[in-house]
């Protein structure tokens, strides 16, 4: 069990969207499992009448071995520790076999109570896509390019290798580890092929394509188990270093692997859980999205306090309250490795900018009866100095709501999604009412299989600012999700979606999603494009995904998805009336 629970954590560190899948069982992996007495959960199949109990109760155990005679007790074979019982009984497994007891997978200690867990993941992405692509302003790829939009087709290839090492002390089957040291490195090679100049790098002489590689430190932390506070191993623990963290259940506000100090623990038999954390964000490398430790820490702090309550208000539902404060003081110009201006964004006033914003959040996840439900609500309150469009400070007042409900019918899960991020009503006033997150990674409404969440559509000719970020759904008009600053002068988002998962077989899952997206207010877009009116509708985003796990495990997962964007009137007012696609082929091999 241990290695299964650790793998999703390792997957979390990938910024690429397939991290999505593991992420939604990653959060409880941070915490001990729920403890619901089995008697309270009647056995039944969703959508079917409850099975009638067996007519006769009683022991039926034909061929059972009779218990050992009493006098056999005492004939002990001494073994070093209980993890080596199997060895003592004569079982032998190859050293590399992760499916049986393995010292490299922390099934057995390497000395006393110290365990070692090695992780290896290979993640391969092939991603053909199409995007409205601006013609290179200084020189186009072809003659006869007289218009602002070039050929939209692009191809992304990315191969990521992740190696992780966990070294910890503890008796983890029974209680939290006492010490944990962890390092995870991710190396990525990526290549982007486009049909226009200045899409991948600002210098048109460097061509239409780009290859790049980066080694990122995605985890590097020590975790000290401070104390147990109850007989049920409720605890307080502190973790220092680059660590994964998710501010809520679906990664709406802040989900990242960042440097920080986090005090966390639980109470009352795990009914209450808490986090007190400070993160100072590490710079990221723009093309891989991986941490760039060499570039140092950003002048950006995130302070988070949150409290989880299990089985509240109803059994099976987790509720959480959060206060997060993001203080950004990055008032210096920064260009990314491709030569584009990352901070401040090449947008509006383009003045160096600081901001501080406090998020108050209420989140929930679980089920109410048969209804699976996840909810999220945030209110952002703060100040941007100056605003994105104006030379004077603006007051940030923005809100966000999201909910996703689903029902299971045997092997079918049907769901509906709703999201609302407020948009800014007037680019030039002293209020910034567009919602933006700190670092979103939404596992929602189809996540990275959805066109709008996966792709970063460039808004302004030149491509320096995108509508929503890659693996982001908020139309926050940042330079990039990775390096850019939050921007609260943005058009916001409205999303309504339906979807379904079909577990055709243990090896096969088919999912679909159909979302309709709108901007909330297009005033900022109108200001940026000097064009009005711009209607709200972005359009329909339809996607289909197939997940194949040939061995019914997470060790080999293949995913193939395709999404299409069918533009609405707002999109057509900004870009050519063309449908766009996003295809994702993804193979994840885990050890």
């Amino acid at each position, binding site marked *: 069990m241990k290695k299964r629970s650790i793998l999703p954590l390792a997957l979390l560190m990938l910024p690429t969207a397939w991290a999505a899948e593991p992420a939604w069982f990653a959060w409880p992996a941070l915490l001990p499992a729920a403890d619901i007495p089995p008697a309270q959960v009647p056995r039944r199949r969703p959508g079917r009448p409850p099975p009638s109990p067996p007519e006769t109760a009683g022991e039926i155990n034909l061929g059972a071995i009779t218990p050992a005679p009493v006098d056999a007790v005492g004939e002990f074979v001494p073994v070093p520790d209980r993890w080596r019982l199997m060895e003592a009984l004569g079982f032998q497994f190859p050293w590399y076999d992760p499916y049986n007891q393995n010292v490299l997978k922390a099934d057995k200690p390497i000395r006393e109570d110290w365990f070692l867990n090695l992780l290896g993941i290979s993640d391969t992405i092939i991603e053909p896509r199409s995007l409205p692509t601006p013609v290179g302003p200084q020189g186009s790829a072809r003659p*006869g390019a007289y218009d*602002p939009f070039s050929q939209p087709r692009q191809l992304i290839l990315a191969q990521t290798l992740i190696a992780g090492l966990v070294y910890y002390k503890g008796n983890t089957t029974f209680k939290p580890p006492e010490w944990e040291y962890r390092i995870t490195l991710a190396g990525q090679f990526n290549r982007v092929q486009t049909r226009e100049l200045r899409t991948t790098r600002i*210098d048109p002489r460097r061509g239409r394509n780009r290859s790049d590689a980066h080694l990122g430190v995605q985890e590097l932390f020590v975790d000290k188990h401070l104390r147990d506070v109850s007989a049920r191993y409720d605890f307080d623990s502190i973790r220092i270093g680059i660590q994964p963290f998710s501010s809520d259940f679906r990664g709406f506000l802040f989900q990242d692997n960042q440097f920080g100090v986090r005090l966390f623990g639980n109470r009352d038999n795990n009914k209450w859980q808490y986090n007190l954390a400070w993160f100072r964000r590490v710079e990221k490398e723009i093309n891989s999205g991986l941490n760039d430790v060499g570039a140092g820490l950003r002048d950006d702090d995130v302070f988070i306090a949150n409290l989880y309550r299990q089985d509240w208000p109803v059994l099976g539902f987790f509720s959480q309250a959060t206060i997060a404060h993001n203080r950004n003081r990055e008032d210096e110009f920064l260009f990314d490795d491709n*030569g584009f201006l990352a901070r401040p964004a090449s947008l509006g006033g383009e003045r160096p900018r600081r901001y501080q914003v406090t998020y108050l959040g209420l989140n929930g996840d679980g089920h109410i009866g048969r209804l699976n439900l996840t909810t999220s609500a945030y209110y952002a309150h703060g100040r941007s100095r100056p605003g994105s469009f104006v*030379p004077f400070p603006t007051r940030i007042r923005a809100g966000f709501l999201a909910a996703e409900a689903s029902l299971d019918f045997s092997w079918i899960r049907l769901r509906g999604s709703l999201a609302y991020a407020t948009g800014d009503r007037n680019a030039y006033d002293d*209020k910034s009412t567009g919602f933006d997150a700190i670092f979103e990674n939404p596992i929602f409404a189809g996540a990275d299989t959805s066109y709008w969440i996966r792709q970063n559509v460039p808004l302004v000719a030149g491509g320096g600012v995108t509508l929503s970020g890659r693996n982001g759904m908020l139309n926050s008009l940042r330079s990039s999700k990775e390096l850019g600053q939050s921007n609260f002068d943005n058009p916001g988002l409205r999303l309504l979606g339906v979807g379904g998962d079909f577990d055709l077989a243990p090896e096969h899952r088919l999912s679909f999603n159909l979302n309709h997206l709108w901007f909330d207010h297009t005033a900022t877009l109108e*200001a940026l*494009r000097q*064009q009005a009116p711009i209607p709200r509708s972005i359009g329909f985003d339809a996607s289909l995904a197939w997940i194949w796990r040939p061995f019914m495990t997470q060790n080999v997962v293949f995913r193939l998805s395709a999404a299409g964007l069918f533009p609405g009137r707002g999109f057509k007012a900004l870009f*050519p009336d063309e449908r766009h696609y996003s295809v994702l082929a993804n193979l994840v091999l885990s050890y």
Partner: protein
Amino acid sequence: MRERNFRHLVLMMLFLAGCSGEGNAPPAVGVAPAPSGAGSQGCTGSCASAQSFLSPPEVERILAQAAQEAQARNRPAVIAVVDRVGNVLAVYRMNGAPATMRIVSGRPVRGGLEELIVPSELAAIAKAITGAFLSSEGNAFSTRTAGQIVQEHFNPGESGQPGGPLFGVQFSQLPCSDVNTRFDGASVRPGPHRSPLGLSADPGGFPLYKGGTPVGGIGVAADGLYTLDPDVSDRDLDVDELIALAGTFGFAAPPERRAERITVEGKTLRFSDADFADLRSDPARVPALGATAGQILAVAGYAPAAIRAGTAFGTPASGIRPDRLDYPGLDAFVLVDGSDSERFRPRAAHDGAGALSENEVRTIMQRALALANRMRAQIRQPLGSQARVSIAIVDREGAILALARTRDAPVFGLDVSVQKARAAAFYSSAAAASVLASLPRTSYFRIALEPGRAVLSVSEEREPQALIPALRGFLARPQALSDGAIAFSARAIGNLARPFYPDGVRGASAGPFSRPFEQWSPFHVGTQLDLVYPAVALHLAHVLNQSGLAIFLGTTLIAPAPSSDNPVPLPDPPPGSCTATPRLANGHQIFPGAVPIYRGNTLIGAVGVSGDGIDQDDLVAFLAVHEAGQALGGGLGHAPRELRADQLAPQGVRLRYVQCPTTPFLDSSAQNVCEGL
């Protein structure tokens, strides 16, 4: 301190009175309200009336407000006020104001206009004209705005981004232009008037508004420098700008029209770093102009020693009035002279075989006007406004065949549209090399002012014909400029006239029209200035001479001080003499908005457009030629594709021919409308 508090109280009350409840910035302090007929959107091009002009008392008040602020800062200034078409209504010199301004970009560059000493009144006039000429009922731009859009990157300092959209516009409205008119020594006259130094990028020049419509501009020279701001991301308190801003009180541009409400490539433009709260004086309570020590100056070639009333824009007196003859139903405006005769009615070319006919010229102009009227403006508020532009058609020798404008287009575009058209016609022509080879060498001067005389000394010499081998080598086309085999659009010429090729890429070498970046500044750009500098320098020497100084070149006397029997020892360069060839009579321009016109494979002229975003200017020029060609049954059109400059990819980077804008039309959401033409 009490007075200061009181002033703030007054400003606050004004602010509250002027606040419409729509947000609270910028406060509408010092803005005359739009007329009641303008509607909730404010003025959109039709507010100008016969009463829209500055009266002498108003000019005096503007001068007094500026002078009061200058006095409060103890920075005596020279203050100029002009009307919308550039008549200089008054130049006021406060006692103790610096006599001259030094032109400096701040870049380590010598020569060109760098380090040149110019009379302060010329700097003030250039700044006032810039504020007036760049503005309209839809947009209020200042000299600070100009500074933001003429540098090597847009925004300045944002490396990797191409140069400013109006890169090179500083060398327009030149004193030698044949489009711009000049003071005749007596009364205000029809414009557009010339500017002594072209357009200014130095903060301290603003437009002036009455009732939501521009009625002129104010320019201030106090700080001793004629420069530009290389960093638009910070906030400067520039003395010239503060003084000029005080002058605009009561005549300030409507806040919702100012540059900071207008975006280009998603970036807001700058209007002013200072606002009324930064003033040390209260312009609402200004004493008469006589309270400050100073005098109204006469400036040779620009103004008498008197305060005059401005002209009402759109009336014949302004030189720009509605068309009555050639462009029915197109809401067009044309240029007229002092007797209300049209200056540039459509006419046939007489430049040899296949010349453009009058009907062809008129058709192209009509198409261009119609396109502009349905095009989305890039630089105007409210959003959804029509683009407003000036359109020029020239023959292959640069003669103007037609010049007209749509309603409320900014005035600067008249001269610029001709400059752009001439550039496209000239460099596309097979005669370009031989004409360039015939041009005299350009000598750049330093000027030292000594008692009673100005002494010029040659600082640098440039051969205009050096462009020929440079361009041929760069393009790897040994016959370029003499075979007529390349159709150059203004955009393509612009690509080649930036200090980096490709444009904006740091470390790349300069285009052949440009000086290398280490030797480049907005005051020393390369071919564009090399060609017009002799005329500009002659004009400067003329003004200095008229101010009573003898002119020496080294120790040689060129012109004695004027006397009664020799009142003009050094004549002003005549209209149309900006270069030594009539093909480029008012110089040439190096930013987009013009295409050459062909009959089959033969160049027959060019159309130039200026006044809105450069992509909009491109579209009007490009589609007008295409549509006119279709309407005329194919007699004319664009250059064959194989001749167009975008077939060339020097140094591996393709030249651009034109770029049409996103969502170009107000009446459709069509994109990519220039594809395949």
